[in-house]
C-alpha cells in the first residue's frame, strides 16, 4: 500500500524530477542505501537482474526465472519493462536500470526504487535484448500472475497463453483456478490447457480420456499435440483414439475453412469494387479510358497520410476526416485533368489513353518528388486492427470487415446519386446522347467535368481504404489499374450493378482457385477466363441496352 502511494507521488513528481535530473545527475548511491534499509528485498533484485547485462540467453533466462520466484511487487513491472524494452543496460556503470526516452536521450531510473539516476546519451544505454523463447517465458510468468485477475478478459488471455505449457507450477495454478472460475469462456481455455497436459501423463486411461475430451477442441495447439501423440505413441489404442479425435477436429475445421475462403473472396471483391467503382463512372458512363485512375487512388491514400500528419493526436478519427478530404483532393485533380487534357480528346480513345498514361507518370513522379520515393506509414486505428475471433480457427479480420461494408456503402451512395439526384439525371442524359441533352439545355461541358470529378473523387475514397491494406507509395496505383479495367469490362461497361457482381464474382473465384493453383496461376486463369468470356460476350455480363449501346 505504502509502495503504491510512493509510486503515485513519484508519477506526479516525474516532470519536475526530469528537469532536475540533468542538472544533478546524482550518483545515486545514497538513494539506494536509504531504500535498502526500508525493505531488504530490493538489494536482492539488483543482484538478480545483473546477469541480464550478459549476452548469453541462457543466463538471461535463469535470471528471469529467478526474478519470477521473488515475492515482490516489483516483479510484474520489471517483467513488463523487459517485454517493452524499458529495461536497459547502462554501459558506464555496467548495471541494469529502467529508462525512458526524453528528447532522444535516456532518463535512467533505479529498477527497484524507480528513483531517477541520471540522464545519458542515447548510446550510453542499450535495451536488454530478449528473444522469442525468453518472450514466451516472460509471457507465461505474467499470465500466471493474471490468472486470478478480477478482469475476465485478462483471465481469458492468461489461460490462453498457458495452453500447451507443462510446467507443474503453472498446471497447479490452472487446476486451482478451475475450481473457482465462473466464466465459461475462461473455463474452456483452462480445461483445454489441463487436457493437453494430461496427454503427457504416464497413465494410459488419463491419456485416452484427455484425447477423447479434446476431440471437439479447435485450438491449434490441440491438433499439434494430438499429431505428436499419433507419431510418438506405441499403444495402438491410443493411436486409434488420437486419429479419431484429429478426424473430428479436421472435419470441423474444413467447414470453417470454406466460410473463411468466402470471406477472403468477399474481401478481395470489395477491394476490387472500390478500385473499379470510380472507373465505372469515368470509363463506364463517360467512355473515357483513364489510365491515371490508379494514381487518383494513390492521391487518396497520400491524402490519408497527410491528414494523419496534420492531426497527430487523433489517429482513431483522422480516417473519418480523410474520406471527404481524399474525395476533394482526387476530385479536384480529376476535374483539372478533364479541363486541361481530356476535354480536347473526347471521341479519340487512343489519344486519351496515351495522354492519361502520361498524366499518370507525371502524378507518380510528382509524389516521388514531394513525399520521396519511400513508402509512407499510415497508422491503422485500434478499432480496425486485430480480428473478430469467432473460434480458434475462424476469425474475421476487422480491417477487411470494415472495408467490405465501406465498399458497399460507397456503392449504394453512388447508385442513389446517379438514380435520384438532378446531377445523376444529367449525367445519364449526357452519356446516353450528348446532342439531345444539350438541346434540352444541359450544360454538357460542366456535367462532363463534374462527372469526371465524381469518378475521380470516388477513386480517392478507395485510396483511403486501400491505405489500410497495402503500401502507401508512388506505385500504389499501378497495381490496381489493370484489375479495375478488368472488373469494369467484365461487368459490362456503363452498368454499376455489373461492376458489383463482377468484383465479388472475380474475388471469390480467385480465392477458391488460389489454394489449388497458387497465386500466380490463379491470376492467369482468371485473366484467360475473362478474355474468353469477352470473346463470347463483348459487352460484358450485363450489357447496357438502349441507343448509347448501339453507337
Amino acid at each position, binding site marked *: 500500500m505504502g509502495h503504491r502511494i510512493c509510486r503515485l507521488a513519484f508519477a506526479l513528481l516525474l516532470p519536475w524530477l526530469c528537469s532536475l535530473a540533468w542538472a544533478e545527475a546524482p550518483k545515486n548511491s545514497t538513494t539506494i542505501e536509504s531504500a535498502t534499509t526500508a525493505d531488504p528485498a530490493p538489494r536482492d533484485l539488483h543482484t538478480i537482474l545483473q546477469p541480464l547485462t550478459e549476452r548469453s540467453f541462457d543466463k538471461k533466462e535463469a535470471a528471469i526465472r529467478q526474478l519470477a520466484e521473488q515475492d515482490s511487487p516489483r516483479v510484474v513491472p520489471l517483467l513488463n519493462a523487459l517485454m517493452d524494452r524499458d529495461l536497459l543496460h547502462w554501459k558506464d556503470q555496467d548495471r541494469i536500470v529502467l529508462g525512458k526516452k526524453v528528447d*532522444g536521450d535516456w532518463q535512467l531510473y533505479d529498477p527497484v526504487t524507480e528513483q531517477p539516476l541520471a540522464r545519458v546519451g542515447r548510446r550510453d544505454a542499450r535495451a536488454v535484448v530478449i528473444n522469442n523463447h525468453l518472450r514466451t517465458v516472460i509471457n507465461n510468468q505474467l499470465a500466471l500472475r493474471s490468472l486470478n485477475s478480477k478482469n475476465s478478459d485478462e483471465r481469458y488471455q492468461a489461460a490462453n497463453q498457458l495452453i500447451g505449457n507443462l510446467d507443474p507450477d503453472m498446471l497447479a495454478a490452472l487446476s486451482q483456478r478451475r475450481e473457482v472460475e465462473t466464466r465459461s469462456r475462461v473455463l474452456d481455455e483452462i480445461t483445454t490447457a489441463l487436457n493437453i497436459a494430461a496427454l503427457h501423463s504416464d497413465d494410459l486411461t488419463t491419456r485416452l480420456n484427455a484425447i477423447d475430451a479434446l476431440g471437439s477442441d479447435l485450438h491449434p495447439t490441440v491438433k499439434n*499435440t494430438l499429431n505428436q501423440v*499419433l*507419431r510418438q505413441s506405441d499403444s495402438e489404442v491410443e493411436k486409434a483414439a488420437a486419429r479419431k479425435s484429429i478426424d473430428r477436429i479436421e472435419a470441423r475445421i474444413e467447414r470453417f475453412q470454406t466460410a473463411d475462403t468466402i470471406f477472403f473472396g468477399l*474481401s478481395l471483391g470489395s477491394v476490387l469494387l472500390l478500385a473499379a467503382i470510380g472507373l465505372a463512372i469515368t470509363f463506364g458512363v463517360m467512355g473515357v479510358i483513364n489510365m491515371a485512375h490508379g494514381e487518383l487512388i494513390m492521391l487518396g491514400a497520400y491524402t490519408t497520410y497527410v491528414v494523419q500528419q496534420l492531426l497527430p493526436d487523433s489517429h482513431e478519427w483522422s480516417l473519418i476526416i480523410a474520406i471527404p478530404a481524399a474525395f476533394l483532393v482526387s476530385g479536384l485533380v480529376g476535374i483539372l485533368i478533364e479541363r486541361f487534357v481530356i476535354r480536347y480528346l473526347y471521341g479519340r480513345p487512343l489519344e486519351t489513353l496515351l495522354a492519361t498514361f502520361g498524366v499518370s507518370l507525371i502524378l507518380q513522379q510528382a509524389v516521388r518528388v514531394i513525399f520521396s*520515393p519511400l513508402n509512407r506509414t499510415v497508422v491503422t486505428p485500434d478499432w480496425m486492427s486485430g480480428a473478430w475471433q469467432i473460434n480458434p480457427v475462424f476469425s474475421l*479480420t476487422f*480491417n477487411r470487415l470494415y472495408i467490405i461494408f465501406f465498399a458497399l456503402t460507397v456503392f449504394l451512395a453512388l447508385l442513389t446519386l446517379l438514380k435520384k439526384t438532378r446531377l445523376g439525371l444529367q449525367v445519364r442524359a449526357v452519356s446516353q446522347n450528348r446532342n439531345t441533352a444539350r438541346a434540352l439545355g444541359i450544360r454538357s461541358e460542366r456535367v462532363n467535368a463534374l462527372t469526371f470529378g465524381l469518378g475521380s473523387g470516388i477513386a480517392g475514397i478507395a485510396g483511403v481504404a486501400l491505405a489500410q491494406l497495402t503500401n502507401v507509395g508512388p506505385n500504389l496505383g499501378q497495381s490496381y489499374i489493370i484489375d479495375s479495367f478488368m472488373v469494369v469490362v467484365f461487368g459490362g461497361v456503363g452498368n454499376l450493378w455489373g461492376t458489383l457482381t463482377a468484383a465479388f464474382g472475380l474475388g471469390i473465384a480467385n480465392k477458391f482457385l*488460389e489454394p489449388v493453383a497458387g497465386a500466380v496461376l490463379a*491470376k492467369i486463369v482468371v485473366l484467360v477466363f475473362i478474355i474468353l468470356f469477352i470473346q463470347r460476350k463483348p459487352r460484358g455480363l450485363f450489357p447496357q441496352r438502349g441507343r448509347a449501346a448501339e453507337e
Partner: protein
Amino acid sequence: MTFKRSMKKMAAGIVASSAIFYSGAVMAADTIKVGVLHSLSGTMAISESTLKDTVLMLIKEQNAKGGVMGKKLEPVVVDPASNWPLFAEKARELITKDKVDVIFGCWTSVSRKSVLPVVEELNGLLFYPVQYEGEESSKNVFYTGAAPNQQAIPAVDYLLNDLGVKRFVLAGTDYVYPRTTNKILEAYLKSKGIPDEDIMINYTPFGYSDWQSIVSNIKDFGSQGKKTAVVSTINGDANVPFYKELANQGVKAEDIPVVAFSVGEEELSGIDTGPLVGHLAAWNYFESVDTEANEKFIDEWHQYTGNDKRVTNDPMEATYIGFNMWVKAVEKAKSTDTDKVAKAMIGMETPNLTGGMAVMNKNHHLSKPVLIGEIQDDGQFSVVWQTDGLVKGDAWSDFLPGSKDLISDWTAPINCGNYNVKTKTCGGQAAAE
C-alpha cells in the same frame, strides 16, 4: 505541325545543353569520376535512391579527406528508371561518354544481368551492393552483398539448430532471386533430412497485396504437430501487406517465426512493427549493431540527409565496404585502370560496420559475418545470433547439381569465373542463369 516544330526545338536544346555539359566535363580532367547507376524513379526508386545518397555521402567525405591520390572524386549520377534495358544503355553511356573509372550500382538481379555484358565488353568496373542468388562471377564485377551461403544457409541453420524447426514454408516473389535461393534451400534442407512433405513452396507475383489465403494456409501447415517456420524471400513492396496480414490473423513469432532475407530497416519503416515483434531477418549488418564505426556511420548519414529518422541498412553497409575497398585498391594500384584495380582488390581488407574486417576473396565476393535479428517494436532489429567468424561468400552454390563442381578464382593460374574442378576446364556451365 507546331508539335513537330517544338520537338525539333527541344531536340536542339538537348544537344546544346549536353554539349555544354560535356565540355564542362572535359575541363575538369584531373578528377576521378565515379558513376552512380541506381534507379531514382520507377518501382525500385524506393530502395535504390537510398544507395545513391550513400555513394554521394561517401564521395563527399572522401573529398573532404583530400580525395584519392590527390585527385577529387566527381560523381556522375544517372537514372536508369527501374527499366532493365535502360540499365545497360546508361552503363554504356557512363563508361564511353562520361569516362567513369568505376560504377556503383544496380539492385535487382535482372538489372545486373543487363549491365554485365556491357561492363565486360568495355572492361568497366561495377560494385554490386545487394544480396543475391549467386551463380555468377565476373572479372569486372565485385559483389559486396551476401551470396546465399552468407544469408540463407546460416539462417536455416539457426532455425534447425537453435529453434528446432522441423517444417519449412519457403515463400517468395516469383522471380530469379527467390526461385534460385529456394532451390538451394530445398536441396540443403533435404540434405539435412527434412522430408518432402515438410517443405511447402509458394510463389506470389510482384507487389502482391492479398495475402489472406496464403497466411491462412501457412497457419494450417503449421498445425501438424511439428515446429514450423517461414523462410521468406518476398520482395520489397509485397512485404508490408504480408506482415499486416500475419499480424491480423494472429500469427505470432513465438509460434511460427518468419525469417526474411529481403526485409531490412528501410522496409520496416513503412509499418507499425508492434505486432511483428520477434519475427526474424538474416543480414550481414543491422543498424542496431553496437560498434563505434556504426555509430559514426549513422551520425554521418543523419547529418548528410538532414533527417535523424532515416535508417541505415545492409545494402548501405555493402556500399560502404565496396567504396572503401575501391579507394584503397586505387591507392594501392596507384591507378584507376580496371585491370590494375581489380588485381589490387583481391585480398583487400577494410573495416566493416559490425566491428570486424571485410575481406575480398579471389572469387570477387566478400567474407562477412552473418547476423540474425529479431524485429523490435521500434522498427529496428536486435541481434539474437551471429556466426562465430567470417563466412566466405561462395559464388557457386554447393547444393545445386549444376554448380557444385564450379569455383571462381580470378587469380593466376585459374583466372576464371566458372572453373570446373572436376574437368579442370573454364566456362561450359549450364547453371549460369
